């Protein structure tokens, strides 16, 4: 088991190496560079001054040389500095990552807390009113775009409850209540889709498991209904659910961008989007690496959870 984990972690290195090359190449294929972004639509420079600026910023050399420079820095633990703000990429990511992490973790937890029970109950009574409601809400949750929901939530809560988006971001650990108050609406907007996805998966997976022979056996043994559902039913139904949660969580790490922008939360997605539009290569590289790493780690965690849930699955 430990060897398996080590091997998976070891595989991180070639994966991230490959991702970094692809991102670097693709970013440089996109026309325009940081000089165009810095100048903005209002101003222009003569070609000589542009060339000087490119040289100062180090974006005048061939792409592969820029890549080698960047890689050399990374191997020394230095992700470089932002071309636009001269801030170190590490400090930019350290500032942005906790916000996105919190958004992703809390909206996933919220989604699980709501979706699992609803999914289970609607599977147990597949023809009841609740089940119909769950199916309807599931469809609704899947079809409502979260940016639309976010905008509506802002407008409604600001008019009726005097709520406002965070003007000063309060970190979770310095003021948990103030932080949660700021994060509530973003988390709600993000978790709606998630609830729908997890609920539908739980329901269909549970329905499948409930029809299995071993469920009838358990019932014939005279086990308590709750034990049958939770121990024999849910535990077996969870594997596809966890897969979906894992994928959705990974997706959230980069997919919170619209919500971050709407609510003015300077998280990873927003920072990355800004960096892309400004062609701020070091920030893009650093951000993508972090997201890749997180995605791989979450997948590893999901795989390990499989083994815990199903003793037949063994790694080694």
């Amino acid at each position, binding site marked *: 088991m430990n060897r398996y984990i080590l091997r998976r972690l070891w595989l991180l290195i070639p994966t991230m190496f490959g991702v970094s090359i692809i991102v670097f190449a693709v970013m440089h294929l996109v026309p325009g560079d940081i000089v165009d972004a810095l100048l903005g639509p209002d*101003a222009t420079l003569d070609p000589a*001054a542009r060339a000087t600026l490119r040289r100062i910023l180090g974006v005048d050399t061939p792409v592969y040389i820029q890549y080698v420079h960047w890689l050399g820095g990374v191997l020394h633990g230095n992700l470089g500095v932002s071309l*636009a703000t*001269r801030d170190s990429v590490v400090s930019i990511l350290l500032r942005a990552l906790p916000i996105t992490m919190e958004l992703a973790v809390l909206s996933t937890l919220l989604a699980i807390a709501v979706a699992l029970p609803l999914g289970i109950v609607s599977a147990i009574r597949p023809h009841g009113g609740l089940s119909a409601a769950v199916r309807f809400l599931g469809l609704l949750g899947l079809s409502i775009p979260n940016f639309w929901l976010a905008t509506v939530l802002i*407008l409604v809560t600001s008019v009726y409850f005097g709520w406002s988006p965070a003007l000063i971001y309060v970190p979770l650990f310095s003021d948990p209540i103030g932080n949660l108050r700021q994060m509530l609406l973003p988390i709600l907007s993000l978790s709606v889709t998630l609830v729908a996805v997890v609920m539908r998966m739980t329901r269909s997976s549970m329905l499948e498991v409930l029809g299995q022979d071993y469920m009838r056996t358990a019932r014939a043994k005279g086990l308590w209904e709750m034990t049958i559902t939770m121990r024999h039913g849910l535990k077996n139904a969870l594997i596809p659910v966890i897969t979906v949660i894992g994928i959705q969580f990974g997706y959230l790490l980069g997919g919170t961008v619209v919500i971050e922008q709407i609510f*003015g939360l*300077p998280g990873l997605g927003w920072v990355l989007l800004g960096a892309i539009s400004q062609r701020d290569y070091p920030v893009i590289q650093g951000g993508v690496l972090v997201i890749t790493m997180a995605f791989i780690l979450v997948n590893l965690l999901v795989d390990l959870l499989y083994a815990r849930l199903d003793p037949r699955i063994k790694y080694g």
Partner: protein
Amino acid sequence: MAVSADWVSMDPHKASAFASIFAWEQTYQSLVTFDENLQIVPALATSWEVTDPLNYTFKLRQGVLFHNGDEFTADDVVYWKDRLFDPATAAPYKSWFDPITKIDVVDKYTVKVQLQAPYAPLLANLASMRGSAIVPHNATQTDFTKEAIGTGPYKLTNITPKGSYRWEMNTKYWDSNLPYIATADNKLLPEEAAQLAAIQSGAAAYTWLTGESTKQITNKALNVLIGDKAYYYHLQMNCSRAPLSDKRVRQAIGMAINHQEIIDKVIGGFGVLTGPVPTGHTDWYIPVDQLPYKVDIPAAKKLLADANLANGFKTTYKANSGDVNDVATAQVIQQQLKQIGIDMQIIQLDTTLWNSETQPPKSDYDIRLNAATFYPDADGYLYNSYYSTSNFNQTRYNNPQLDSLVTKARQLTDHEARRQIYFQVQNLLLDEMPVVPLWNGKNIEALSPKLKGYRQSYTGRRLFFSQTWLES
């Protein structure tokens, strides 16, 4: 305070975007500034004398301290020019000060500025803060993208990219009465709904609003100021490309365009008609009732027929997807041009790509929309954009007559004579149509009822923020 656009960089000589100026204009100052009527008034210089059109002598304010404790002296003015002209700075607005040949220190508090040719816009350009901020001459090692050292009423601190920045009262400000408000946090909130929510709930004391959000305000206690500002949108045509190189084709497009429809549909009516100098700009602009705009489809079709394009032609419009007005304008104009047989395809590009492709030196476009913010002098709108070899010549318009007129106007010191030439130039442009001026926007600012003493500026900047106070 809510901020609607990202400031990208904070270096006052390298950053040219208006969003950057908004961030640091309480922190840096120049020799002179504007009053409410755009007249030049003292800032770091207390008085100035124009010995002859080539020599300006500035008396500097004494006892001014930079935020790092250095005293402001004549050396800092010299350093300003050195830093701005240094190729390593690559200052986008250096060309506004190109006629300066040298700055001499007369004594600790007096400088003499020498020009190579008479240059009427000099003082206004200094007041504009585009490349004119004065920084301490000892701070050669300071990275101004991260750290701000100026002489202004507020220190700029806690700069978080994509996040926020803080204005902190400069307790040693030279005008000991100012500023009134101790600190102001500025937060980037690009989303209109979020800006509206922030100001309505009282979380923010100040925000800009678009015309559309203004219509959604429900909190009647808010103080919503709607004034004029220079925010000039104009359709540019690439005069180096056929068939747009033909004046008749450009004129036909101009006749097919219904300005009022664009103003109503794109910006909800919050704009005014304008000529090549934005409406309301001191006395440089052509009054709205004298503008020649009139939709005339038959005449437009005839012009096209004269140019052997009776069946119309295909062209493209490159829109900056980062500007909501741009795409909307493109769609309205697409419909309007269809009436005279022009099939205009809209291509959307992200802001950086749009800059790279459609701005000089590449200027790879047929038709595009451009927005100009406040330029201090008519020269900024007319010389820079249309002089044939100017770096700012975005339409590649080339007309020796215009070249000689704008050059002459720049060198005159008599205001009325300059004004007459600029009217002549503007009428020439409205006839030749390398550009179709579409509208000049409104300055919509929403303030908490507690914020008192705020005054708007035509520059669109918050020039008088240090004189506002909060009532509890």
